[in-house]
């Protein structure tokens, strides 16, 4: 029964890869009885997806050092995902609550012995008046990996959100495997941001000057705030390899490409400063 909820690792109904691992974790936050602080409701770890209540680990946008927010950290219980694995992670930010979701380490995508694809599906709901800060660590696509990453976020009209995503094209000195991702954000059911990324041996032209060029790292910060409905931040091409752009709705995308993960992190953090407080860190 539970398997039917998981991303199907074999779309053509083929046998599961040998040793494939399936995991389904979830977390939710809710407003506490006092009406202003937030608390964790449900917290379910599963195998490689280990969830722990946490304390501030480093600077966070929006909620820096705020003791009243619900903090959760995602840690890796095992290596991977490896080819053939299927992970699912559900996040529910209840009405009026604030959740800060951080990660303990990078996610290293590794090939499986059969060449099968690994999948990671993340579904997030942010209810009315709620705020989600998801400060993720990089996703590293190791050589010969074969992975699909899918993040779907559904926001209430009055919800706020900021997330960071970083993709690294291979470990040190290696070329990346096949990686595809999709990040789709809807607000009140309408599309606000929908972008796929594809790189690796099967992605024609990804290393050309329109997509990633010679970059080994790419990422973005997406922020959504209903207060920007009437006055969105101005576009800001603040670096030859980075730009801050207002979306067609009350949101902002900061995008950067870089030679390595450190430069990428620096560029994204620099872009955040243009949003000013409380978004900057």
């Amino acid at each position, binding site marked *: 029964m539970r398997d039917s909820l998981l991303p199907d690792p074999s779309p053509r109904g083929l046998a599961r890869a040998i040793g494939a691992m399936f995991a389904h974790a979830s977390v939710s936050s809710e407003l506490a009885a006092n009406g202003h602080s937030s608390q964790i409701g449900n917290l379910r770890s599963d195998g490689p997806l280990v969830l722990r209540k946490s304390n501030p680990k480093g600077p966070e946008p929006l909620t820096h050092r705020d003791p009243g927010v619900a903090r959760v950290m995602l840690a890796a219980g095992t290596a991977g995902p490896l080819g053939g694995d299927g992970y699912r992670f559900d996040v529910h930010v209840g009405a009026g609550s604030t959740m800060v979701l951080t990660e303990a380490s990078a996610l290293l995508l590794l090939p499986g012995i059969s060449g099968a694809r690994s999948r990671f599906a993340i579904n997030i709901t942010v209810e009315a008046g709620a705020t989600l800060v998801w400060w993720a660590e990089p996703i590293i696509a190791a050589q010969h990996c074969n992975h699909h990453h899918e993040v779907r976020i559904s926001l209430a009209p009055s919800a706020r959100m900021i997330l960071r995503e970083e993709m690294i094209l291979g470990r040190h000195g290696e070329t990346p495997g096949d990686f595809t991702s*999709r990040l*789709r*954000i809807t607000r009140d059911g*309408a*599309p*606000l*941001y*929908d*972008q*796929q*990324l*594809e790189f690796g041996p099967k*992605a*024609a*032209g*990804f*290393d*050309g*000057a*329109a*997509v*990633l*060029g010679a*970059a080994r790292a*790419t990422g*973005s910060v997406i922020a959504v705030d209903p207060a920007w409905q009437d006055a969105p931040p101005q*576009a800001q*091409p603040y670096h*030859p*390899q*980075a*730009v801050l*752009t*207002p*979306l*067609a709705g009350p949101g902002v*995308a900061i*995008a*950067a*490409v870089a030679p390595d993960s450190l430069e990428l992190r620096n560029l994204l953090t620099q872009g955040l400063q243009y949003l000013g407080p409380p978004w900057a860190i």
Partner: protein
Amino acid sequence: MGQVDLGRQAALLLLADGRLPAGGYAHSGGLEPAVIAGRVRNMADLEAFLTGRAQTAGLVAAAFAAAACARASRDDLAALPELEAEFDARIPSPELRKVSRDLGRQLQRAMGSIHPHRYFSALGRAPHQPLVMGVAASVLGLGPQDAALAILHDNNAGAAAAAKLMRVDPFEVHAILARATGPLDDLARRAAETADADPADLPAPSAPLADIAAEHHRRADARLFAS
């Protein structure tokens, strides 16, 4: 579905012709920004740029042109605003959203004059170019795959701008375009396959460097092309 009706091939050529007075000549399809940024220096760079662009922004435009064509062909213009919103969500750069709407408005005006049809005025004031292309293809009796191919060709033909931007042999530029014909046909077929899909499921591949370069280009002091 989507096969070229042998009786309509001339219509497809008309729609895809760079001399159609729809303003395409003022744009390099992101090539000038990439040349200025120093990312396209030679023929190999140019070919990789065009390949990557066709697979990303090209496929998105093709999928939306095909989807708009399929809807216009069944007289379902009420579905177009949803396509507009989905297309907006796939273009983070406000400059590229504006370019798409500018080109859409010009194509709408050209086609509305060349081949008047009530659909063109029903598109609104500044519709996105792929949606106008889809509707125009439908009005000319063409199918979703034709609409996809027309916009892929239109976007790719901007490469001819290379002759004005770089020290190149124009024959070599067209050799690249000739090699791209097979992949463009494949992309048009893929776009046609999703013509009737839920708009939320249409392809959304991103082109980060093209987005970044477009925003820098808007602020450039000296430029030959609008985009």
